[in-house]
């Protein structure tokens, strides 16, 4: 007969304890810097090597670029189809210049499927938002560009 009384004492003991509920829309969860949310994209860094599109297990990345007068590739379009993206992070892993990264946006609900076709503009804005939110996590764009630019000119 003792058994369930022990159980009753456990539940009663929980009553005054601190509650764990996170009041989600008002309070956002703390997300670590490795968190894999929707992508963000830095077009200036992209060298159109196509590796992200090739590694993607679901073929959700499409990109195209052109060569400018300095024989340097420039990205023209970069689309991610979020209907099929599984946020596996492989594209970020293979990117040689860290042009594609992941943000902390995890709210993916939209009203139309068309909104899930994320283009370069959307992804760049996502990057800007992220930089604004976590200035300490993102190396300043100028620094990165400066290094890269120096390398290219040499």
């Amino acid at each position, binding site marked *: 007969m003792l058994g369930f009384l022990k159980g*009753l004492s*456990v*539940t*009663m003991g*929980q*009553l005054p304890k601190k*509650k*764990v*509920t996170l*009041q989600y829309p008002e309070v956002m969860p703390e997300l670590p810097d490795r968190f894999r949310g929707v992508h963000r994209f830095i077009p200036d860094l992209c060298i159109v090597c196509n590796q992200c599109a090739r590694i993607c297990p679901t073929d959700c990345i499409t990109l195209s670029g052109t060569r400018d007068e300095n024989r340097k590739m420039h990205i023209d379009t970069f689309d991610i189809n979020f209907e099929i993206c599984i946020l596996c992070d492989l594209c970020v892993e293979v990117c040689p210049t860290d042009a594609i990264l992941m943000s902390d946006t995890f709210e993916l609900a939209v009203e139309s499927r068309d909104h899930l076709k994320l283009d370069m503009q959307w992804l760049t804005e996502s990057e800007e938002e992220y930089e604004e939110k976590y200035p300490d996590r993102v190396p300043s764009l100028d620094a990165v560009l400066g290094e890269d630019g120096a390398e290219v000119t040499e």
Partner: protein
Amino acid sequence: MPALWLWQHGPVTWPHVLVMILGAIVTLAVTLGVVTYTIYAERKVIGWMQGRIGPNRVGPFGLLQSFADIFKLLIKEDIVPEKADRSLFLLAPIIAFVPSFMTLAVIPFTMRHIFTADFGVGLLYYLALSAITIHGVMLGGWASNNKYALIGGMRSAAQMLSYEVPLGMSLVGVALMSGSLNLNHIVLAQSRTVWYVVPQIVGFCVFLVAATAELNRTPFDLPEAESELVAGYHVEYTGFRFAFFMLTEYVYVFAMGCLAATLFLGGWSGPFLPGWLWFAIKVFAFIFFQFWLRATMPRIRVDQLMSFSWKVLLPIAMLNLVGTAIVTTLW
């Protein structure tokens, strides 16, 4: 004015009839309020016991949550399944619901039992009416023409009938001690001597278990065992008909709490505080106990439920009854 409130002992006059109707309406309103906040309190308390905060969105601290839920249920579409037995399907919630409110007529909320009847066989009246609800539940399950609903309804019938017996037996002990079936007299008898929970502790335990089973609450919530029967007998009900079933359940929780308070815990009697407050505290203690059980217990199995009633609870209740009879006779 006091004479007006003592309508039970005088001849029936028009003012008395008016008071009766007024009393019924007030009781109904109070009960609905209590039930609404019982649901709210249940969600809050169980939430706290589980490390959650419970409803907190509608109104301050979520206080209006239950009203929002009821309102939602009332404006929802009333769906009657095509293959259902239409008339019974529509009637069942009413059969279940009406007796639940009628039982409240005999509950002595305060010493003056304002608004409620001073009924000579109040205890019998309560048991008789609460048994009618089973029909509503069973018919609802049957008329839905759904297998899960049917199993739920049948389980419910079997369970309520089985537990009605030990419940009644445990109450007889109280009746023997007080020498009356009038609930008000039982309270008076207790206020003179001692709360019957002390001499009738065995009966009280039997009552507590049987009452939990009668209320279809955890660990005896088999008729609506959501992990087995999805929702049990009301699986096909929507909108306000579903609300009726829900209300029935919670009105019975309240009514059973009132009965427990009246029969075993001394009703409105108690020092210092006004009678109605004592009564409310006792009822809430009972209801809280139900919440607490629900937060802790798994569900009993249907065959164990039945054998527990007939093989354990009933013999204990009988022994208690015999013992009480002997003691009261000798004493």
